[in-house]
């Protein structure tokens, strides 16, 4: 087809709306638009960072990819095969989970307190048909890989370990099925800074060693910049901007991204942020109004922003942004002039 290599993971117009129930007799009190027509793709071997405020749909996206919740619409293609779709072009959810694993934020809640570390890691391989002995030997190998001495940790229980150690175990557990893609859902957010750095470097080492592809979900812009090749910015269930990490941090195109970046604490007091920060919380994702969802907090919002949904438009170099200001001929005063249509021949 095209000359670009086929994406390892391709997400097309993924959507999840949660109905709110208010009582037995009423049909519903509105719909939470948690993830709304999100499309993106991930190439093998790259790290896609996903950033956004809490409630923007980052974690829901991750859970949709893992099929921990059922999407309302949209397709997820893994190596060109649709997850959960029938036929030869489809891929069963079970097989997809074998190739895609997830690390959760809460390192304690994501380990069964009644299982030893070894049993926790060996669980998934046993489910997938490995003998208990093989699975345990794999668990010990993985423990060594994540930097924990197997003979000291294998028989321990989660509550005997520190947060950083537990998160290493969770990483080992996610790797136990030898997946191609690992989704890291705020995997380092709960750790303190020095431990966080160790775990991040461990993740980078594992990526090179095992040829992994990461989806790195975080609200920490510094961490995302350190880890990612490309970055996707989400706002209220929509993609605001997506592009290579240098483009997002260097040639920011969306007003929301620039607001996020200006709120990022700087190490240099001389470079303190001068821009006013975003005011207030994001509006409720329950039955959002039409048009751009950021317009209620956007300093550049104009009438056109409430009339039409912004669509992702190419900025060049794989950088896409969903903003009327960047779309030629959108009607926004800051938008570039429409490109003259070629004269009909």
């Amino acid at each position, binding site marked *: 087809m095209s000359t670009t290599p086929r994406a390892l993971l391709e997400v097309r117009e993924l959507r999840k709306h949660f109905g709110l129930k208010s009582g037995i007799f009423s049909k519903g009190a509105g719909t939470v638009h948690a993830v709304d027509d999100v499309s993106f793709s991930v190439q093998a071997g790259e790290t896609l960072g996903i950033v956004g405020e809490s409630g923007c749909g980052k974690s829901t996206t991750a859970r949709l990819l893992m099929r921990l919740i059922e999407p309302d619409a949209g397709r997820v293609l893994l190596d060109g095969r649709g997850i959960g779709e029938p036929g030869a072009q489809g891929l069963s959810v079970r097989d997809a989970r074998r190739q895609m694993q997830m690390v959760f934020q809460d390192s304690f809640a*994501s380990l069964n307190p009644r299982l030893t570390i070894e049993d926790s890691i060996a669980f998934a391989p046993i489910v997938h048909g490995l003998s208990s002995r093989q699975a345990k030997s794999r668990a010990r190998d993985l423990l060594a890989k994540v930097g924990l001495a197997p003979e000291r940790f294998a028989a321990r229980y989660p509550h005997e370990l520190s947060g950083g150690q537990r998160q290493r175990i969770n990483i080992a557990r996610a790797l136990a099925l030898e997946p191609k893609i690992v989704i890291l859902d705020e995997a380092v957010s709960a750790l303190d800074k020095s431990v966080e750095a160790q775990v991040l470097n461990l993740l980078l080492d594992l990526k090179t060693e095992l040829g992994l592809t990461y989806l790195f979900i975080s609200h920490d812009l510094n961490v995302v910049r350190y880890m990612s090749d490309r970055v996707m910015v989400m706002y209220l269930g929509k993609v605001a901007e997506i592009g290579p990490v240098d483009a997002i941090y260097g040639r920011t195109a969306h007003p929301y991204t620039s607001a996020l970046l200006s709120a990022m604490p700087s190490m240099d007091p001389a470079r303190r942020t001068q821009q006013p920060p975003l005011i207030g919380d994001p509006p409720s994702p329950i039955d959002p109004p039409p048009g751009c969802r950021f317009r209620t907090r956007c300093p550049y919002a104009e009438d056109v922003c409430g009339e039409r949904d912004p669509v992702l438009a190419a900025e060049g170099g794989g950088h896409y942004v969903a903003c009327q200001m960047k779309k030629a001929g959108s009607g926004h005063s800051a938008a570039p002039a429409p490109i003259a249509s070629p004269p009909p021949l």
Partner: protein
Amino acid sequence: MNQTAPSAEVVAAATARGYWSTVLARLSRDKLTVTCALILLGVLLMAICAPLLAPYDPFKGSILKRLLPIGSPGYFLGTDELGRDMLSRLIFGARLSLVMGIAPVLNALVIGATLGVIAGFLGGRINTLIMRTIDVFYAFPSVLLAVAISGALGAGIFNAMVALTIVFIPPIARVTESVTTQVRGLDFVEAARASGANNFTLIRVHVLGNVLGPVFIYATSLISVSMILASGLSFLGLGTKPPEPEWGLMLNTLRTAIYLNPGVAALPGAMIFMVSICFNLMSDGLRAAMDVTQ
């Protein structure tokens, strides 16, 4: 790799203790719980070895020796209103009383916990169906329910047990359901689901281990309630029938002697009190010891 594995296991076993050995070690430090467990063990042994321990036949009375006070020569704990030896009757009574305390709770634990785990884990319509049906039983006070079912089935030990089982299913199912719902929402269940395990494996490996502990402890505390309810049924003539020795029934028949010989009349009550408080304290101790995360 395979050659180094055994030696690694030996080291690990030496450095880390298993879950149950941790619980046992904690229990052994808890003197109150140990005392209660020993008392209960004593009562259990007493029930098993009743024919060896009892000095007299618990059914054989004597018109001449009615209502002897505690400490009478030859009758250490006195005699009841028909002149039967109280000590022998209390020892034999432990058999029925323990059975009536434990059996209904065990039955209810099997049925109730199964219902609760299914309802809690599957959620949705199945949860509504099971739990609302269970709620119907909450409309009746438990004593009334036990009396009604027992009355409908007719007097007798087996029927009383069925009635008590039905009484205890709703609370056990409800506790199990709420614990299961809590556990099901935890990340480790999600993570296990994400690794491709089916519901049966998820419940077996990840849910049961975390649910049964608290439910088991709750059930232990119900044993004393069951004993008292069973005594109540016997008292009303719905459970055990005289002359069968059972603490509840003995309490009932000795009621007439409460002004004549209050010490003897209170003895079956004291036994019920001691055993049920031991079960309650032991369940508290178990709760503390089994919570390894603290």
